[in-house]
């Protein structure tokens, strides 16, 4: 019989995945700032400390660099830590351990070790938290060989990809958009995994491929619903993993639709859109393109506090609709 499927929020799905991982493997434990009795800044760990105790749900001091290093050291020596950054922005304080240590340890030591650490990063804008608590830094880490970087866009994927990350022998960085935490969706009970190297076609279409990440997947789907009424049939590819990227799914989609738009919240230049565009330009799909590739990304500014400015800084559904119309009608 199939596992019972319930509606869970994205945050509940992550919490359930962490509980299952701890039930299945005594080496799994959680570390982070205020993840114990406080329940985490976004209530993702919730009451896990009551169920698993302070020895497996460890509140760290406000020491992102040291804390990340402890997680790396524990992973290196046989444990399976899941380390929560309170905000993804605080990765900047821990870059040394993530980039120089976790990512390179296996390589530098000629394959003699592995670092099965999972790091979780609440990311993105939309909460009025301003410039230092709203960034989307996933492409920074996506640039580093040795790391795997994922951005689940649904509760189902959040649970399944976290469980895949815990089972993965290498360091996996999970970027969770803060506005997704309350999003509800169907999530099966029990253990299942979603592969870390596969994009997902969330909506099939003939006229245009939109490659989106994280919260932009839902925005692209909303845009696609409106565009359908206008006779524009959009295919939405949820990239899910930015390293290693599932190139083939994107290539096949572009060959089918002949048009490509990339939609992501991070600053537009030198980001995921550039990578996807270049990858298509280098592939056999290039010959299939009927129009220039379009990137919709974040503005070239820090995230502002004012809610109207904040919204204007990142792509919204009307922006996607408008850009898609132009692209399909050949305005660009």
């Amino acid at each position: 019989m199939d596992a019972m499927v319930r509606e869970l929020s994205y945050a509940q799905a992550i919490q359930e995945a962490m509980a299952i991982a701890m039930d299945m493997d005594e080496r799994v434990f959680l570390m982070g700032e205020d993840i114990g009795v406080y329940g985490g800044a976004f209530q993702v760990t919730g009451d896990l400390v009551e169920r698993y105790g302070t020895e497996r749900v460890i509140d760290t001091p406000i020491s992102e660099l040291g804390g990340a290093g402890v997680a790396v050291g524990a992973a290196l020596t046989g444990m399976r830590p899941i380390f929560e950054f309170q905000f993804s922005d605080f990765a900047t304080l821990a870059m040394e351990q993530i980039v120089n240590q976790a990512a390179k340890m296996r390589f530098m030591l000629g394959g003699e070790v592995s670092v099965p650490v999972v790091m979780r990063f609440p990311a993105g804008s939309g909460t009025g938290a301003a410039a230092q608590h709203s960034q989307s830094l996933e492409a920074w880490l996506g640039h580093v060989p040795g790391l795997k970087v994922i951005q689940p866009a649904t509760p189902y994927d959040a649970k399944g990809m976290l469980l895949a990350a815990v089972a993965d022998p290498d360091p996996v960085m999970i970027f969770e958009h803060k506005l997704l935490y309350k999003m509800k969706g169907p999530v099966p009970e029990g253990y299942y995994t979603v592969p870390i190297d596969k994009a997902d076609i969330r909506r099939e279409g003939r006229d245009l491929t939109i490659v989106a990440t994280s919260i932009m997947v839902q925005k692209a789907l909303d845009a696609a619903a409106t565009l359908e009424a206008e006779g524009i049939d959009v295919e939405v590819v949820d990239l899910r993993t930015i390293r290693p990227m599932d190139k083939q799914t994107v290539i096949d989609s572009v060959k089918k639709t002949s048009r490509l738009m990339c939609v992501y919240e991070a600053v537009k230049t030198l980001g995921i859109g550039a990578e996807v565009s270049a990858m298509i330009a280098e592939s056999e799909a290039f010959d299939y393109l009927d129009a220039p590739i379009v990137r919709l990304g974040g503005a070239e500014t820090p995230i502002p506090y004012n809610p109207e400015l904040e919204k204007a800084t990142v792509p919204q559904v009307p922006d996607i609709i408008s850009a898609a119309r132009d692209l399909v009608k050949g305005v660009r």
Partner: protein
Amino acid sequence: MAGASKAVADSRANLPFVYRQYSAEQLKQVLYKMYLIRRFEEGAEESYTRGLIHGTMHLSIGQEASAMGICMPLGEDDQITSTHRGHGHCIAKGAEVKRMFAEFFGKTTGYCKGRGGSMHIADVAKGNLGANGIVGGGIPIAVGAALSSKMMKTGKVVVSFFGDGANNEGAFHEALNMAAVWKLPVIFVCENNGYGMSTSTARSTAVKNIADRAAAYSMPGVIVNGNIFSEVAEASYKAVERARAGEGPTLIESKTYRHRGHSKSDRNRYRTKEEIEDWMSNRDPITLFENELREFGFIDDKGIEAIRSEVAQEIADGIEFAKASPSPDVSETGNYVYTEQA
């Protein structure tokens, strides 16, 4: 560790710690390894000069008693994290010099299959989790290894070696604080050789002794003369006992000196010839240990000569092994970035 018998111990009652604690055979083995570290680094330096080794290296010549003293009470299961000046730690923890030379020569038989070189030398099987190219990079990692030990109840003690330069990195402070809060079985060993590259501790560090910083993290801060093997080993022994008893971390400051420059690019413009000469002539750790062994009757000139010639042979064999070993194939450049999955 099995040491001196009761009768022998009584006859040594007034001698320094190691001569009471360890057997003559163990102490001679220490001298052997101190020579092995010295000659290994001289051999590596010479090979570098001849163009057989590329890149750079950071030699610990002059700091051998520190590496050996700290590792003396450790068992094979205990773990260390090391530094860019980590050849001595690696040998002290049990590595074979032939595989170290092979690594420096970039060969597949090296400890890291030629991917790491001097700055990432490691011997995981013997508990050396690796040297580190980032000053202070290994300190939080050691705390993580100690957390593993506590959570898995393995009884392992972890030593984190670092230099005086690292004590001004944030990682040092964050890691010591967490280790103390969680009472982890870890020993922080600052090998203070007086200079972070060219900048003296007097110019870089607000406290007179780095061990003074232990007070901020409620752990014992112990200062030892890092060039006297017995002093270092005694401090390490006590710290290991404390860690194994679940009483938490210790900070040991081992005051020592590197005879060579920071790395191969160093022109030694920040210290005087007289200062270097003084440390080499009057405070060389191998000479000091050798003199004590002789004075206390553990070894004679013939025994010392035998050790020197055995070490010379092991070094020569090691270099030959490295030269004869194969280089990795360029087609394997992408190996070990990720775990190979079946």
